[in-house]
C-alpha cells in the first residue's frame, strides 16, 4: 500500500490483463506489463474517492467459485421460465437491507445479484443502507434475502471490512 502501489490487487489485475492481451510471456512484455501495472493504477487512483482494501484473498476465490456456480444454475432456471408460460411469473421488487457499509462491498454484492440471473439490483437507497432488487419470479421474499445475505454478503463482509 505504498505511495507507488496504491492497490496491489488492481496492479496484479493490470499485469495479468496485459500478459493475457499480448498472449506472449517474454521479458520485454513482463517489464512493460509491470510498468503499466504500476503506472495505470496511479492514474486511476487519482479518480478514486474511496480506496478498496481487500482482506482474505482466499475468501475471494471461494466466493468467485460460488458465484460462477450459481450463475450456471440460475441461468438454466431462468431459461426455463422464459420459455414457459408468462402467466406463471410473479415479478416483484424487494428491498434488501445492507450490512455492508463499504461501497466496494456493496457494489460487488449488487454486481453479483445482477449477474446471477433472476435478480437485478435496481437501486441503492441514498443512505446506502438498502438495495432495491427486482426478482424475475419471487415466491418468498424473506428466504431470498436471507440467501443473499448468507451466500454473498457474509463473505463480502470479510473481504471488504
Amino acid at each position, binding site marked *: 500500500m505504498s505511495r507507488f502501489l496504491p492497490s496491489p490487487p488492481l496492479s496484479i489485475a493490470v499485469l495479468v490483463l496485459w500478459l493475457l492481451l499480448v498472449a506472449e510471456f517474454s521479458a520485454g512484455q513482463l517489464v512493460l506489463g509491470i510498468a503499466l501495472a504500476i503506472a495505470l493504477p496511479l492514474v486511476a487512483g487519482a479518480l478514486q474517492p474511496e480506496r478498496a482494501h481487500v482482506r482474505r484473498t482466499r475468501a475471494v476465490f471461494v466466493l468467485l467459485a460460488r458465484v460462477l456456480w450459481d450463475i450456471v444454475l*440460475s441461468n438454466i432456471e431462468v431459461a426455463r421460465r422464459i420459455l414457459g408460460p408468462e402467466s406463471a411469473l410473479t415479478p416483484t421488487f*424487494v428491498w434488501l437491507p445492507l450490512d455492508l457499509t463499504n461501497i466496494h462491498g456493496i457494489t460487488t454484492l449488487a454486481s453479483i445479484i445482477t449477474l446471477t440471473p433472476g435478480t437485478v439490483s435496481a437501486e441503492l437507497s441514498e443512505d446506502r443502507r438498502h438495495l432495491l432488487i427486482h426478482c424475475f419470479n419471487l415466491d418468498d421474499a424473506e428466504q431470498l434475502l436471507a440467501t443473499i445475505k448468507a451466500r454473498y454478503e457474509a463473505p463480502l463482509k470479510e473481504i471488504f471490512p
Partner: protein
Amino acid sequence: MSALAEILLSLLIAIGTFFVLVGSFGLFKLSEFFKRLHGPTKASTLGVGCILIASIAFHGLRGDGLGLREILITLFLFLTAPISAHVMARAALRLSPEQRPPQPPAASATMSKAAESDAQASPAAGRGPDAD
C-alpha cells in the same frame, strides 16, 4: 482435433447459442420491461461465456495459438453488465414511477438498524437467490 473434442465443443457452442437466443427471445416475448430485463442481461452472460470457452478451446486445439485472452471478454462483460443493467433499471423506474416500490421501511438510521437486525434474525440457510 479428436472427435470427442469436436462433440464437446459443438455442445458448448450449442449451449452458448441457446442461452443467447433465450435471452433475446425473452426480450422479444415478455410483456413488461422488468421481466425483459432478466432475459438478456443474464442468459447472454452465460451464453457468451460458453461460446468463449469453446472459442478458446477451438483456437487452442487448432493450433492457432492458445489465446486465453478471450477470457478478457468475459471479464469485461462481468464488469460492465451490472453497470448497464443497473442504470437501465433505474431509468425504467424513472420512466414509470408507478412501478417503484415504496421506500424501504426504515429510511432513517435507527430504522435501518432495526431492519438490519431483522435480516440477521431471518434464517440464513438456502441454496441461492434462485431458490424460489
